[in-house]
């Protein structure tokens, strides 16, 4: 049976991993290559590295970080943040990424998804969507530029468009939940996951193992991503997977 994936996310600024709390207030949490190894050994199914420095501030540093992190990592490795062109994507792939994640650039130029997919395959293109509901159960809106800019687009409609443009997966972040540790937004996740045929990775709000169970059962997520809960010794991936396995969720554990 296809297992549910637990994806460890490293938010990187410059060449250091930082913790994102609702896209602000950053704290240092270490070296990306070392942390990726720790997560892989403790059972993470994939690693995502997101460059959260101002887009394209310093591509050389990012590429070096990707190269260093990828060198001894033998599980899937996704890199996102500031990729605006096919050439920039190609540079990230040749530094060792298996997939790239694009967000702002995909909205500015939806056919960028198609161009990268045509060259590297759909399986290599993850479209990241930052969605926020706000008040009164309004439709989820898509934000770009690290959550700072509203696009006026509906998350559901954009997810469908990204799929038809050739995205292989969707990384769906609830901005309402991100950094709150109050649980994933299962309603958002289920709405998008049921509307597209490609896998959906839930992100934003993970705090406990119960949150992961809920997003797999109620949210219909194919994978779930977490950053902060893993960084400070609150829980490692192995503990989390043990708990999911006991609850009857298919996971790769032990591994």
């Amino acid at each position, binding site marked *: 049976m296809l297992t549910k994936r637990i994806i460890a996310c490293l938010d990187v600024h410059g060449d250091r991993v930082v913790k994102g709390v609702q896209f602000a207030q950053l704290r240092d949490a270490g070296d990306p290559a070392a942390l990726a190894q720790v997560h892989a050994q403790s059972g993470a*199914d994939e690693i995502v590295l997101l460059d959260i420095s101002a887009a394209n501030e310093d591509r050389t540093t990012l590429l070096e970080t990707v190269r260093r992190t990828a060198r001894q990592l033998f599980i899937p490795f996704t890199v996102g943040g500031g990729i605006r062109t096919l050439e920039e994507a190609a540079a990230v792939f040749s530094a060792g990424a298996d997939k790239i994640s694009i967000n702002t650039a995909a909205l500015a130029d939806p056919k960028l998804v198609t161009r990268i997919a045509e060259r590297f395959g759909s399986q290599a293109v993850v479209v990241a969507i930052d969605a926020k509901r706000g008040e009164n159960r309004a439709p989820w809106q898509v934000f770009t530029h690290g959550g700072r800019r509203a696009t006026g687009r509906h998350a559901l409609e954009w997810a469908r468009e990204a799929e038809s443009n050739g995205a292989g997966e969707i990384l769906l972040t609830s901005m309402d939940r991100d950094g709150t540790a109050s649980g994933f937004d299962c309603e958002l996740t289920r709405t998008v996951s049921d509307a597209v045929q490609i896998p959906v990775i839930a992100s934003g709000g993970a705090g406990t193992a119960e949150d992961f169970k809920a997003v797999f059962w109620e949210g219909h997520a194919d994978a779930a991503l977490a950053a902060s809960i893993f960084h400070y010794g609150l829980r490692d991936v192995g503990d989390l997977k043990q708990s999911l396995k006991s609850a009857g969720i298919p996971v*790769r554990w032990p591994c």
Partner: protein
Amino acid sequence: MVAIVDYGAGNLVSVQKALDWLGQDSRVTNDPAEIRRAAKIILPGVGHFASTRALADSGARSAIIEQVERGIPFLGICVGMQWMLEGSAEAPRTPGSALFAGTCLRFPETAKLPHVGWNQLEISPGSKLFRHVSQSSLVYFTHSFYIPLNKWTVASCAYGSSFSAAMERDRLFGVQFHPEKSGEVGLQLLANFCAI
């Protein structure tokens, strides 16, 4: 030296990193002369079946087939495995190498596609490729087209129904999953291939 055949698509870096880790000398190449000098050949692959057309254009295709006929061990990964068949529904006008009979089909639309993630293998006893790999091991897949079960299947996997996760005949090997991305299990499998 292991030749990792480049056809302009996909992530060749990952396969080479895994061989580096195993202490195996490898070369990423599309040069037929280099392929003819190789002790082993790996054809990696992610992306579209049509991209394998570049193998014919560069002359790599005939170099690979010659080497296989001489008994040089060959491993096809993902689209590289699919290329070992006669063709694929993904690109009906692009011929495969026909090292094995059959064609690749698309998964029915009833499941999420692509089939992405870690899924379980059912391994046949006696496979050279799977020596020291535990029954029911999980490996990483990412694909929308599959090879049906056949008499060369040495590992199967279920996604909707069962398909060929690995095939083996003499010194010809193919895996639908990505050993270079499948942790310890994948490294063991690559080590087995390198030791043949």
